[in-house]
């Protein structure tokens, strides 16, 4: 009875070319005034005994047509999506058109880290000149001209001035212009006549100074252990090994426990379990006198480290000269 109608409808659906055509077709068949809808409306005019059968057939027809439209819609959508994506296609597996960002120099990277650690403890970063006079570089620091300790500071001279051999002169300058309490670190370039795999004639130092009432070795120990743990890792320990610097008394070499063996001893630490990282000590009373501080009232600690050495330990760099070669492949690691 409705066979022809069904055949035509399915044929038209099959032939639909795009989604728009299909939608028009749906309205023509199943819309309020669609062919099939109109047919359903005629059921009421049929004899009573034929109504259920006709109703059932028409209902099945309606459902079948609906299914056909859905199926066709999906297939058309797929086709359209494919067309669209071919038009938009970018091969995302090609490398990115990269804008290369530069790299921080490893020394500067470590220096920034050191500064942040001490600044967060309350220290202030202070800078000073590289060309110094020997009073600020030596005499004020309790190192008179004929002291054998000057052997370790083989300096470059410019007539009556010199290139500072450490950043301690900045401490002197600060103490001359400010009153305690003082907590400063002074980073900067320093110069000594030495050039090999473990020495550069120019290197970077950070020196620190804390002056207040009742400053003790215990405070120095806490501060430097905190520093070592921040820069090398929480598990690290430090030890104070007695040493000598003219400007501190008592003086120490500060060692950090070896990160490779944890202190048991290995090749990296020369089988001692410890690595030397900095020098430190309690400020010598003569240094205080030289800047007009009363050594009875004020005590303090000072420390100094080579940023190159810290960087070498941190990143396991073997040759200090790499820092001034600036090989791009080296710099790109930082």
């Amino acid at each position, binding site marked *: 009875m409705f066979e022809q109608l069904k055949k035509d409808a399915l044929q038209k659906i099959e032939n639909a070319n795009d989604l728009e055509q299909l939608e028009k077709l749906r309205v023509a068949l199943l819309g309020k005034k669609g062919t099939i809808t109109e047919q359903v409306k005629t059921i009421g005019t049929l004899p009573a005994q034929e109504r259920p059968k006709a109703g059932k057939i028409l209902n099945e027809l309606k459902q079948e047509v609906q299914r056909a439209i859905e199926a066709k819609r999906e297939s058309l959508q797929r086709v359209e999506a494919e067309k669209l994506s071919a038009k938009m296609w970018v091969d995302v597996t090609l490398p990115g*058109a990269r*804008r*290369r960002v*530069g790299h*921080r*120099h490893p*020394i*500067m990277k470590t220096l920034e880290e050191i*500064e942040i650690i001490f*600044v967060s403890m*309350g*220290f*202030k*970063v202070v*800078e000073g000149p*590289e060309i110094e006079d020997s009073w600020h570089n030596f005499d004020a620091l309790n190192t008179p001209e*004929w*002291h*054998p300790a000057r*052997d370790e500071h083989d300096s*470059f*001279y*410019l*007539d009556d*001035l010199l*290139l500072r051999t450490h950043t301690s002169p900045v401490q002197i300058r600060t103490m001359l212009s400010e009153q305690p309490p003082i*907590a400063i670190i002074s980073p900067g*370039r320093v*110069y000594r*006549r030495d*050039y090999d795999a473990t020495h*550069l*004639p*120019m290197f*970077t130092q950070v020196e620190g100074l*804390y002056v207040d009432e009742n*400053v*003790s*070795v*215990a*405070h120095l*120990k*806490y501060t430097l252990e905190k520093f070592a743990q921040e820069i090398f890792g929480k598990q690290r320990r430090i*030890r*104070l*090994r*007695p*040493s*000598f610097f003219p400007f501190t008394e*008592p*003086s120490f070499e500060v060692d950090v426990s070896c990160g490779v063996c944890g202190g048991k001893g290995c090749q990296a630490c020369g089988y001692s379990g410890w690595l030397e990282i900095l020098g430190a000590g*309690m400020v*010598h*009373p003569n240094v205080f006198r030289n800047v007009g501080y009363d050594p009875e009232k004020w*005590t303090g600690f000072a420390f100094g480290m080579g940023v190159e050495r810290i960087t070498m330990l941190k990143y396991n760099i073997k040759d200090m000269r790499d820092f*001034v*070669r*600036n*090989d791009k492949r080296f*710099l790109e690691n930082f």
Partner: protein
Amino acid sequence: MLVPLEWLREYVQTDWTEEEIANRLTMAGISVKNIVVPAIKGKVVCAIVKKVQPHPNSEKLHVLEVFDGANTYRTVTSDLTVGENSRVAIAMPGTVLSNGSIVEPASIKGILSEVVMCSLEELGLETKSEYVYQIEEEIPIGTDLIRYWKIDDRVLEVEITPNRPDCLGIIGIARELAALCGAPLQMPEIDFEQRNEDVNDFLKVSVEDLDGCPRYCAGYMESVKINHSPIWLRRRLMNAGIRPINNVVDISNYVMLETGHPVHIFDYSQITDGHIIVRKAQEGEQVTLLDEKQYTLKGIETLIADRKKIIAIGGIMGAMNSGVTDCTEKIALEVAYFNPVRIRKSSKSLNIKSDASYRFERGVDPNDAIFVMKRLMHFVEKIAHGKATKGFVDIYPQRISPKQVFLRRSRLHAVLGTTVQDQRVKEILESLEMNVHITKDGWKTQIPTFRNDISIEEDIIEEVGRIYGYEKIDPQAPKITASGKGWSDLSLFRKTIRQILIGSGFDETVNLSFASSSVVKDLMNIDSLKLKNPMTEDMDCLRPSLIFGLIDALSYNVKRQIKDVKIFEIAKTYSLNNGVPVEREKIGIVMMGQLNEEDYTDNRSASLLNMKGVLDELSSHLSVDLQVVPEQIDWLTAGRSGKILLEGEEIGVIGMLNSKFNQVYDIKGEIYYMELDLERIFEKSKICRQPKEIPSFPAVRRDISILIPVGFASGQILSFFARSSEYVEKVGVSDVYKGKDLPEGVVSVTFYVIYRAFDRSLTDEEINTIFEKTVRDIEDTFGVKRRFA
């Protein structure tokens, strides 16, 4: 300093292992860098030569049979002086000798040599030997000689800080060890026979230079027999790094190593009238010392002389003319105390560093002279058969007395940040040979004169601390009050610039501050700030520009096939201003090769305008008006250089390096460079500016292409536009066109101008009028023409 362990243990009985000794000394400040293990290993025994026969195939060799008490071995030797019944040290196969060679049975011209007869060199007892060592001591055949002579004794390599000259002698180190382990220090024997003749009948000493030589002690001995030293003495010297010479010289070295007090022995027969005169040198005097070199004196040295000649530079080195020789029979022995500063000055000016000067300039004990003299005579008597007269000459008019230092209990505890028991403090100080009295407030101490490093309370605090052990001090957080922000504004400003440049693709570099003054002169034609004592010629001055350094980094990379380089450095440059050295912090930027090497969609190369783009970006970020003005600069390429102005003041340069740089540094390609004065920009920068109000009325844009001839500065047109109307918001360039349709030497530059009013919408008509007038004015003013008239 090298400290043979067996020697050290002679003065302290301890059951500590060598590792423990090394560790404890290190933690007390006597830094042991290494424990040296001698190379010798295996079996060397005392044997007797039973039979000597010629070698059948060589006249230069002998074949010997040697007997070690159990077996007889055959050995072949080229030392034809070894005879029957000679006792020799034979090394068994597998033994490693001191020079590293391994003993193996070997056929020598057809005869199998089973063992090696050792020379002193092979035993590590001499630096160079020519003969087999024939044993002189009464040693039983079969004795294990490595053990008997202790030649495998380990040696501590110790680093002594300059404040501890007392530890430049083995007794000094033993004293430290004794204090650490609680054992007594056993001082060595000093006994010897004194004959009845008075020393003053043989020796006379006049000290004229008391400042240089506060104490001069002399002794006299005769009947001395010069020979080589016994094995034990040679071994100790060799292990301590001193070459044995003869018994008397060896004894003087030995006593110096033992006590830390350098001594000198003269051939008495060379001293005119037996009269020693200690005097200050005169400038220009000449002397030949034991190193066989001639020196001209500066007049600051303390001389040991006689009436006719100089016989030593006191505390530094003896003269050739009076040294001990193989024929010496009578000797004069010197134990003196020289002024440390005078010794250091003399040693520096003569450029002589001797074991003696090293110790004297740090300061030896003035008060151990008699002990040292006795120790010296003890050995000369026992080893070299010398005979001493009665007494010594001792010129010591102003005695140097021990210092008294009071240590307050409160100060000790405050500085260490911990409490040390009173009794323990006393114990520690006494173990270091101080005289100690406990009082109500602390400890009254008398410091022995060998500790010239101790003179104030803090010095004693250090002594207590290092023996007590710093590991026993608990860390304690200091109460630091932060003052202001952590960084100065300049320092934060520098950080911002670094971030901008790194973000723009530049790698940060650190370069040495040195340059070669001749290269600087050649490339820039300026005189640089020269060092008085440079390390090398190519680092003889401080760089006047950061390009020296940056270009080294560039060249280092280019030589490694890395040709796309964008680098910068922020550092000081140096110059002389009216004779005064001046340092200024600069920013140096270098660009070469591909502009964006990692971006394959962009194949542009670095150019001057890209470098200027960096400058404009800095201007914008740092809120400064950095202008470039064309300027011919010698070391930059003609037509591609300019100076950078900030509010009219020159603060930098920009350009392409001239080809001389390419030649000198062997780099091919265009190198762009810019240098800016960081401090000047900082002073003018308004990083904390207020943001501009965001406009709410629309803008009107006009574009115009103008034909610009070569050499014309388009910047003039930009500024003309900028000043042309109150409504100009922005002016810029949208295109630069060079085409065949344009005349030679002319480019078309398209300028754009954005107009905007803050309070209303501008009309096209009013802007057309303004724009047209401005373009005409530009044509009239600069004589240029628009491209599409």
